[in-house]
């Protein structure tokens, strides 16, 4: 069930209506039932994987809790605790490995031996990637580590815990919530609150705008150009790559914001997943602002346990590369994702190595580091580096990505900027203008976020008629300019495939 499908538009009001109508103590169970229905509407069989992951991490949590209690009683249970964590990780990652990486491994093996002129031909398995498996697995594993570290008590109510793993707004594409934040809220369902309701509704509208008006519209152009990059070269590819950066941002931010809005309507506050990432002045900062829930997950549960930056520069760089390589692999079972991840790691290592030179250059040229112009320059440079890496993320394979970059640079069809040829790639001039206006709106929203200006609070302070006008206008914009309806299949959110 996609957020931008009719199914969800019917499902969600029913869930919300019932949620506030039934007694408070039943609400958790209602949300759990709704969440499982939400997941099963995609593929009912795969609900057992969700259930498996839930049971494994629930039991491991209880066992870890018992170890912690016994340790309080003076017994040493370190080995047993580690065993519990290892069991939880192995079982969960085994499932993830089978369903997400097995065929990738087989393919890679076949290719590798193929290069050595050895025919291996290990057959691939006909497995459908369970939607959201990476998200809920990581969320559940995060819980195991949190209990292991003693950051939280294990949840004893299985249904509450099952809801924590399967809470439908963030089940299939995040944010990957922390047990400390979400479990506590799920234990105490909130009462109906107009402010939360309005805030959630505004968030959902913004999310739908980003997804349906911008991301899906841009996708038409990007898909056309990337789908035939041998024909659409040079400027076409440059524009498509620039736009893809906006597309993936709007797509994923759209999903996250709808998820946050839906949760907020249900009285639950999810963590922010994006914080104006394209306004970052460096790649490290970008990753503190992009997909925050995943970045911080990797930081807390991989980078820091690996030693982080505490064991010298070389080890730090190695940890960075491992973290970003794994992050790439998390995004997709393909070498292009791994390279994408590694590239982001390299940008940061390069930035760190070049820092003294940059500092010298800044001093030499007497550049004011706090000036807007310098920041804009940094933002632009960061954006270009990130965008270059996106080519690997978007292309079908590593070779396609390399070819695309080559054709971007070598083809000299500059007239395409001016002769209207860009309007023959699925979007006419008016649609392009709409995209430009939409991007400007997004930029304003991001600048406000960057500066700590809360637009929703400004709306909330206005008279009711003005609030209604904002809502009506937003609804109309989404309905008229959104990509939906007959002849258009509700497009998956890009992050669903992870």
């Amino acid at each position, binding site marked *: 069930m996609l957020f931008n499908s009719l199914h969800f538009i019917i499902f969600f009001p029913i869930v919300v209506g019932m949620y506030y109508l039934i007694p408070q103590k039943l609400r958790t169970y209602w949300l759990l039932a709704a969440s499982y229905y939400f997941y099963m509407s995609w593929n009912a069989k795969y609900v057992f994987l969700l259930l498996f992951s839930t049971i494994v991490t629930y039991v491991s949590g209880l066992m870890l809790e018992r170890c912690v209690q016994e340790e309080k009683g003076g017994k040493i249970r370190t080995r047993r605790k580690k065993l519990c964590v290892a069991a939880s990780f192995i079982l969960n990652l085994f499932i993830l490995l089978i369903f997400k990486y097995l065929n990738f491994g087989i393919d890679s093996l076949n290719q590798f031996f193929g290069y050595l002129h050895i025919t291996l031909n290990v057959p691939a398995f006909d497995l459908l990637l369970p939607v959201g498996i990476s998200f809920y697995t990581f969320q559940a594993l995060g819980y195991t580590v949190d209990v292991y570290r003693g950051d939280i008590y294990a949840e004893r109510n299985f249904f509450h815990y099952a809801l924590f793993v399967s809470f439908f707004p963030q089940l299939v594409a995040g944010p990957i919530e922390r047990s400390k934040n979400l479990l506590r809220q799920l234990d105490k369902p909130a009462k109906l609150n107009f402010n939360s309701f309005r805030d959630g509704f505004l968030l959902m509208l913004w999310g739908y705008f980003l997804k349906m008006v911008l991301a899906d519209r841009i996708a038409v152009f990007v898909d056309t150009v990337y789908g035939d990059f041998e024909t659409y070269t040079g400027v076409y590819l440059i524009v498509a790559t620039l736009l893809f950066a906006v597309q993936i941002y709007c797509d994923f931010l759209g999903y996250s914001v709808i998820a946050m809005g839906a949760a907020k309507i249900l009285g639950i506050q999810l963590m922010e997943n994006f914080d104006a990432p394209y306004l970052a002045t460096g790649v490290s900062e970008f990753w503190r602002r992009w997909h925050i829930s995943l970045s911080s997950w990797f930081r807390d549960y991989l980078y820091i346990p690996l030693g982080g930056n505490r064991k010298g520069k070389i080890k730090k760089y190695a940890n960075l590369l491992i973290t970003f390589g794994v992050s790439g692999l998390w995004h997709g079972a393909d070498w292009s994702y791994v390279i994408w991840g590694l590239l982001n790691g390299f940008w940061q290592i390069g930035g760190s190595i070049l820092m003294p030179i940059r500092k010298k250059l800044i001093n030499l040229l007497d550049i004011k580091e706090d000036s807007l112009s310098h920041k804009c320059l940094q933002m632009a440079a960061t954006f270009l580096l990130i965008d270059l890496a996106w080519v690997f993320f978007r292309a079908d394979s590593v070779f396609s990505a390399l070819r695309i970059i080559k054709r971007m640079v070598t083809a000299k069809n500059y007239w395409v900027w001016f002769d209207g040829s860009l309007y023959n790639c699925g979007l006419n001039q008016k649609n392009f203008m709409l995209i430009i206006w939409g991007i400007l709106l997004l930029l304003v929203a991001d600048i406000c976020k960057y500066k700590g200006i809360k637009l929703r609070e400004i709306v909330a302070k206005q008279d*009711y*008629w003005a609030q*209604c006008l904002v809502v009506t206008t937003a609804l*109309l914009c989404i*309905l008229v*300019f959104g990509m*939906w*309806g*007959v002849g258009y299949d509700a497009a998956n959110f890009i992050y669903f495939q992870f």
Partner: protein
Amino acid sequence: MKKAKMALWAIAMIVFAAMLFRSVMFCLENKGAHNRNGDFFRVADECDVLFLGTSHMATEVLPLELWHDYGITSYNIAGLGQLMPVSYWMLINALDYANPKVVLVDCYAIEADAVANDGEFMHMSMDGLPLTKTKIRAVCDLYDDMDRRIEYLWNFSIYHNRWDELTWKDFDSRYDNMRGAQFQVALCEPAPFILRDVEPEPVDSVGVEYLRKIMEECRRRDIKVVLTYLPFPANESEQKVAAYVGQFAQEYGVDYLNFLKLNVVDFKTDCLDANSHLNISGGHKITSYIGKYLSEECGIVNRRQDGIVDWDEDYAGYQRYKVERLQGLESLQNSLIMMADKSFSLCLYVDGESKIWDYEQYVNLVQNLAPEYAFPTLGEIMGQGVDYLLLLDNKNRVIKEFGGEESGETETSFGKVVYTKTEAGERVLYLEGSEENLLVEEDENGHKLTVQTILIDHSDGSIINLQKFQETLKATK
């Protein structure tokens, strides 16, 4: 108190949003169906006759001409690509508003097994229906697929994408007042047509199934049904289907007009395309025949005395529309097709240097201006390289030809018409009360004009349209 105020605001804004949304929906909607059928609900209770069928019926029967010529009130609810199941539901919807005495059903494509065509044509039929229980039943009957049902019940789901193609016309809520009909102006060489004495070929199709439903519904409501098979250069297989419709009509004891056998139209001048549709000239002939039939055989009374003023106003609008279309035409061929219209009178002048008589299609089209007339002078002057004037007064049915050096004065319903030659050898044509010579030798750019047409409103003698054609037979602007 605060909550009450909030509730009031909420209600007010919901109403405002609903109105705004409705306006936006209207602007974005494709106006095709709205233009054709929007007027139906205004005049439905006045209609004695309804026409059903596919594009054949939609483009060949012109209700406002039936009104003008016979005082028959009718509406054409046929549609492009409208198969019998859709026609059935169009009728059921129409019967929620109208009480017709006669329903004419054209049976072209009755052998089709499809329930409905998808796409623009289907929307041209369904979009015009208000969202009622009947429409919901219709859409659910025609489509099993939920997406399709939503598409037709809430067409905003497809039209919201039209924001980038809106024109000022999309903001105009007025509709065509042509009572559902439309016409086309073009000419095509017809496919060979040989009328054969064929045996009926039994047809067992979804089309027949729904035609039976139409028959039963009309029988239940005591509405006379007339089946038709409108003319086109039908092949043998289609003629067998036409024969089957005759058998079907016999089975139900209803009249059947098989136009394939009636020789009402001339395919040489009336075909819009090679093997299917007729142009406006053919439409006039079919309409005239059906009008006579309805008056004489079905007892449909002339309602001109009933004080239904809207119909006359709409007929005047229809006439203006025809003139606008005519003025927009650029070829002599299409002008001649449109001028084969008995509601106008005309003068056609052909210079001696013109080559139009070399082309059979032009000879046919000129003769088609008065099909019952023999055109003796035209026969004489062809190939002679001399001037020719045809004067056609459709009100008093005065037809006068002048060939070569002939000149003269002719009394017409719009006054005396003088056609003569000056001492300088220049041809001149005057209408009574005017000293303006209507014939010009060259246009403003010095191009020789070889054919000139003057369309006259015979009710007041005013000139409606004056077109001049160069040697290429393209209109000069």
